[in-house]
């Protein structure tokens, strides 16, 4: 089978994309081998440095969120593969401005283990490192018998909100606590209409029938809760929203941020249909969407589908969400 992708060689995908980022954006610096993207003005003296990272293939997350008001550095791994401790250590050193460094880690076995090793290495270099693990995906049962819930959409929100707090010179302990708060007040769920194709494997990660969808999909094509016949957007959104609201801290009268995210292969016009359905449903439950984010921010290569994330807001979170941000992926007020 021919690999139908705009690439040169599967082994060079990550490096060549990073070289493209370097050529395109002067606000960030790209370090090749070990790979990391860092703010051009790093380290910012007296500011908590925020480092995230994960497998590539979820762009613009994380590299696209490096810049003023969000991440100080991002470590891209191979496609769908956690980055390595040496990358994370170099990125941590590059953003250490004397106030400590926060690692925002998505809850996947590899990510957690590699970031743990990196935090150990950072401490030996005399840098105070705190790590917060994001696990907001309600599709996965959290139990002793699984690796726990996956980190998905809340990661983007946590990176934005913590970035704003760090910019305002909050302490490492406060930024870490804020990150845990965003995580605990967020819930997400995804769905897929088609599979993604990793450059390495060259074929669909999972088989989905022409008329089927997977509810509860993970951002690496991991299966979710159930596979069923495709249905109208209203029914799909109803199932996802119910799962999110019932699991989370959301009550009548609450204000929320609603994040409708495209998986990479779904056009914006469909995401707005999803948002419209979500807005009606939440309105019916007396939950007010006071902030929103609609677009493809945490993707799964060319997978078609979407995810929905709700974050329960308060004045603090709303203010930090509204604060200026200047990255290639998110930009306002700056």
């Amino acid at each position: 089978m021919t690999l139908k992708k705009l690439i040169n060689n599967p082994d060079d995908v990550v490096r060549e994309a990073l070289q493209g980022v370097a050529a395109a954006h002067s606000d960030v610096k790209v370090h090749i081998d070990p790979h990391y993207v860092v703010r051009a003005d790093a380290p910012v003296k007296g500011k908590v440095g925020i480092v995230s990272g994960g497998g590539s293939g979820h762009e613009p997350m994380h590299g696209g969120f490096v810049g003023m008001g969000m991440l100080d550095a991002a470590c891209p791994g191979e496609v769908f593969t956690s980055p390595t401790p040496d990358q994370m250590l170099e990125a941590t050193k590059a953003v250490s401005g004397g106030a400590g460094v926060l690692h925002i880690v998505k809850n996947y076995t590899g990510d957690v283990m590699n970031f743990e090793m990196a935090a150990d290495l950072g401490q030996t270099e005399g840098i105070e490192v705190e790590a917060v693990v994001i696990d907001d995906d309600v599709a996965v049962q959290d139990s002793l018998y699984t690796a726990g819930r996956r980190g998905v959409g809340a990661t983007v929100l946590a990176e934005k909100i913590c970035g704003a707090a760090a910019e305002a010179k909050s302490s490492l302990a406060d930024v870490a606590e804020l990150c845990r708060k965003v995580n605990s007040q967020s819930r997400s769920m995804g769905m897929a209409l088609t599979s993604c194709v990793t450059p390495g494997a060259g074929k669909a990660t999972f088989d989905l029938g022409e008329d089927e969808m997977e509810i509860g999909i993970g951002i690496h094509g991991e299966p979710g809760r159930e596979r069923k016949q495709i249905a109208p957007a209203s029914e799909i959104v109803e199932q996802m929203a119910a799962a999110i609201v019932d699991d989370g801290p959301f009550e009548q009268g609450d204000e929320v941020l609603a994040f409708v995210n495209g998986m990479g292969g779904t056009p914006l016009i469909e995401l707005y249909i999803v948002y419209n359905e979500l807005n009606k449903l939440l309105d019916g439950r007396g939950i007010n969407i006071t902030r929103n984010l609609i677009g493809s921010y945490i993707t799964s290569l060319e997978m078609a589908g979407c995810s929905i994330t709700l974050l329960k807001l308060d004045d603090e979170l709303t203010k930090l969400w509204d604060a200026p941000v200047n990255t290639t992926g998110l930009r306002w007020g700056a």
Partner: protein
Amino acid sequence: MSASAVTGADVVRWIELYASTIAENKGYLTELDSAIGDADHGSNMNRGMNAVVEKIGDDPGDDIGGLLKTVGMTLVSKVGGAGGPLYGTLFMQMGAATAGKSELSVEDWSAALQAALKGVKARGKAEPGDKTMIDALTPAAEALSKAAAQSTSFTDALKAAESAAEEGMKATIPLVARKGRASYLGERSAGHQDPGATSTYLLMKTASEVLGSSSD
């Protein structure tokens, strides 16, 4: 080469054979991983082992522990995913257990594998039956301990470890995964062989092929 010990050069040949075996089985490992994981185990291990072979070169030096530590550090920095920290830890622990030695007896080998098992369990927090590489590594380490205690020949000890790892690997098929990405599948992970247990079996198989034939 002495009759009952392996040298640094043997260890280099083992690493090289493991690298070429991983390259041959890259598609197979990725296929196993796409059934219950994220379809990258073959390519990740292949990238790591290629880097290892390049790094260690032809000169084994006279410290097998140092050599194995270099293998582990290279895997940690090149593989990523869960495989990087886990295989990196495996080799680093083997290295720590054999530090300063220029020859390994069957007892040394067994002690190194026990250290590796302990390290991998601590890093990944997995236990036997979780459907991970531990399910192949545990019986292999046990078989080696037993063989070492009974003064079995190096060849027979390594063969026993290989068979035990193979059985352990096959025994992962009906298991429901409790660690790693496969655990998200719950019951749906049953019926598939664990890719990590498979790459661990290949590690024991190549050890038996290279070290077994050279040590007697």
